[in-house]
């Protein structure tokens, strides 16, 4: 069999460079990438954390995941910009469509990472390295941000390769390069070695990826069970997983919102749920998927969080049907106390191509489908609030709430 050729494309400090690019394109003279700046969770919220940082910010030892508060102490001049997941989704989508030109098999691994199976495309486009430079240049020129590309014979090595030296670099990691390029790296650079596995490995004297690769596989298996065997395989550059076309890492679609004031009126709460359902369902239809599981979550004014879910008879993408279940779920669990935060989520997604019908399907389903389709296309063309539900008129509430949340994409998954 022909050796596979896999690319791993990783956007360099994705959120920050997307944000920077967008600001430059919209007239800002400041490039976020050249000053100490971070993208962080809502700066007003006490729980804001850093999602991405610029290279100058890195010099202040600001780390992804630390609180904004502690980052500000390290660098008082730090510029903090709020995240805009919808923008990131757009950037991710355009990058995906560029990659799709080079292969029929592109897997969106997370919002800022893709795998491309280039094996079949080599006959069409030629030398992988040249094409990788081509892709990298196109993304830089057409989209305005930089990427790292790793080229290897499997997904694991491609991913390891793209992590080697950043930013804006292309690396190969073929079997004969593993020893030179990968084995000397500290062990925590290996995919799937996290802060819990690290001390266990250090305990038995494994400090580099090479140490692990040279260890005995069976010993690793008895020491760390199947995970030990997995990372031992990874250290040796062994991985057979395929590039899956659909982004199966997305398990559900959900939106949630914290209200400006605590809501204790049922009608008002229903409207908020409707505005969330509108967004969730639009995203669901945009993905060409149907959902079988519907859930809601409530956080009350005492910060007590609870949720409730149900499975429905036939998978659906209809706003009306989903909202009906959302309302019922809400009534079943709400304890009438003031609510601070509400969420709507759908899961168990399946394709739209065929689905089992049910006696409990609503008669108007076909009409609903047409209305949803029409409303979606009007909103796409003339903006989200170009057509809204009458219930929101004079309600003081936003008719559609929630962005494309990051939570749906597993940023790091054990599923390669």
């Amino acid at each position, binding site marked *: 069999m022909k050796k596979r050729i896999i690319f791993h494309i990783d956007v360099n400090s994705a959120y920050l460079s997307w944000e920077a690019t967008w600001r430059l394109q919209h007239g800002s003279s400041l490039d976020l990438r050249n000053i100490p700046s971070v993208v962080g969770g809502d700066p007003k919220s006490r729980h804001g954390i850093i999602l991405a940082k610029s290279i100058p910010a890195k010099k202040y030892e600001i780390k992804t995941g630390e609180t904004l508060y502690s980052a500000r102490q390290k660098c008082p001049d730090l510029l903090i910009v709020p995240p805009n997941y919808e923008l990131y989704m757009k950037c991710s989508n355009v990058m995906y469509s560029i990659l799709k030109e080079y292969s029929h098999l592109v897997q969106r691994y997370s919002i800022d990472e893709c795998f491309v199976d280039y094996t079949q495309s080599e006959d069409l486009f030629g030398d992988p390295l040249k094409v990788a430079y081509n892709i990298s240049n196109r993304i830089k020129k057409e989209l305005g941000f930089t990427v790292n590309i790793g080229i290897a014979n499997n997904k694991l090595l491609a991913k390891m390769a793209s992590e080697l030296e950043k930013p804006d670099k292309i690396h190969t990691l073929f079997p004969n390069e593993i020893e030179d390029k990968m084995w000397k790296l500290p062990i925590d650079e290996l995919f799937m070695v996290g802060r819990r596995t690290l001390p266990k490995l250090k305990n038995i004297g494994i400090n580099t990826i090479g140490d692990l690769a040279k260890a005995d596989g069976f010993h690793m298996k008895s020491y760390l069970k199947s995970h030990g065997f997995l990372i031992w395989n990874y250290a040796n550059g062994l991985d057979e997983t395929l590039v899956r076309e659909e982004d199966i890492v997305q398990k559900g679609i959900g939106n949630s919102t914290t209200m400006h004031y605590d809501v204790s009126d049922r009608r008002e709460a229903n409207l908020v749920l409707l505005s969330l359902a509108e967004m969730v369902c639009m995203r669901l239809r945009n993905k060409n998927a149907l959902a079988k599981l519907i859930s809601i979550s409530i956080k009350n004014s005492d910060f007590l969080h609870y949720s409730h879910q149900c499975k429905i*008879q036939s998978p659906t993408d209809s706003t009306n049907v989903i909202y009906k279940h959302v309302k019922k779920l809400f009534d079943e669990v709400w304890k009438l106390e003031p609510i601070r935060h509400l969420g709507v989520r759908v899961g168990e997604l399946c394709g739209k191509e*065929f*689905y*089992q*019908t*049910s006696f*409990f399907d609503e008669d108007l389903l076909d009409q609903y489908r047409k209305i949803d389709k029409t409303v979606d296309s009007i909103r796409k063309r003339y903006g989200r609030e170009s057509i809204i539900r009458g219930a929101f008129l004079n309600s003081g509430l936003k008719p559609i709430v929630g962005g494309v949340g990051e939570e749906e994409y597993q940023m790091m998954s054990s599923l390669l």
Partner: protein
Amino acid sequence: MNFITTKDDLLHSVNIVQKAVSNKTTLPILEGILFKVMDNTIYLMGTDLEIGIKTELPGKINSQGSVVISAKLISELVRKLPDDDVFLELNENYILNIKCLNSEFNIQGQNGNEFPQLPEVHSDKEISINKELFKSMIKETIFSVAKNENIPILTGELIEINDGIIKFVALDGYRLALRQGKINDNIELSEVVPERTLSELYRIASLSTLDSVQISHTKNQILFRLGQTHIVSRLLEGEFMNYNQIIPQNSTTKVKVNVAELLSSCERASLMVRDGKSNLIKMNFINNILEIKSNSEMGTVNEQIDVEIEGESIKIAFNSTYFIDVLKIISDEEILLEFTTSVSPCVIKPNQGSNYTYLILPVRYIDH
């Protein structure tokens, strides 16, 4: 308590009442079977509080009393006893002494008075139904009962009696099974019986040599009686779906088809979809031919059957499991399939008579 019975009789009775014993219970005493001698009768009883089974055990009685013995232990023990008379005697501290030929056991039991009573079902009206009819009514509908509890009422079957007609109806949202038969009693009834009760009843009825089953009910309990065996079950509360409303009265396509041919074609077609959740098979009825197609990454299959089509041609897709479940239990040689559109239910009826009606909802799909 002291009595003598035979191994066979004891095994038979234990097997019957054990069907009501649940192995996952929060009340430890319910893991046992009650042995009770009272009014010159030996009773055995088991219950999980949803369903309770009581039966009589023939034997020679020496004294009264009661004790609860672990169902698991006693059933294994009795099964392994030699074929002979069995002597049972209750001693102090609820220890049951069991003797059979050269074997002797002393089993620790529990106080029989602590065992819950079987709910009394007093009803002046009792319905009698032929046992074989009763069994086939269960067998030919029970597979359509909902497997999950999304809609609790659908985890049971509707038993409806009206104008001398008894109907069993099961539906899970995607398919419906209706079986009807005649009975002599002029009585009205409409109750929903849990699936588990019916499947245990089917097994008990299969063990029994009697010809008929008696049914009586009160507000929330139903009693089935097979001779000296009483099965009491809780009824499901709530409104069953109005099934008459969903059975289409008209059709635009009528197809007469051989059951055995259709079944084997469906089974072959489903070989290609074994892994998929929706088990999609596509049917095309045209020019007196039924074409069944299915495809997956594994491969494709194409089946053709000669049928008699009256009305319009139609293309429709189904979950093959739903079709196979129905076709498996139909004993007729030929059946009628009726359709209206590719998104409305397929009605399966006997070629003659009206003993059964099955509805299967199609799978909606986009034809590429």
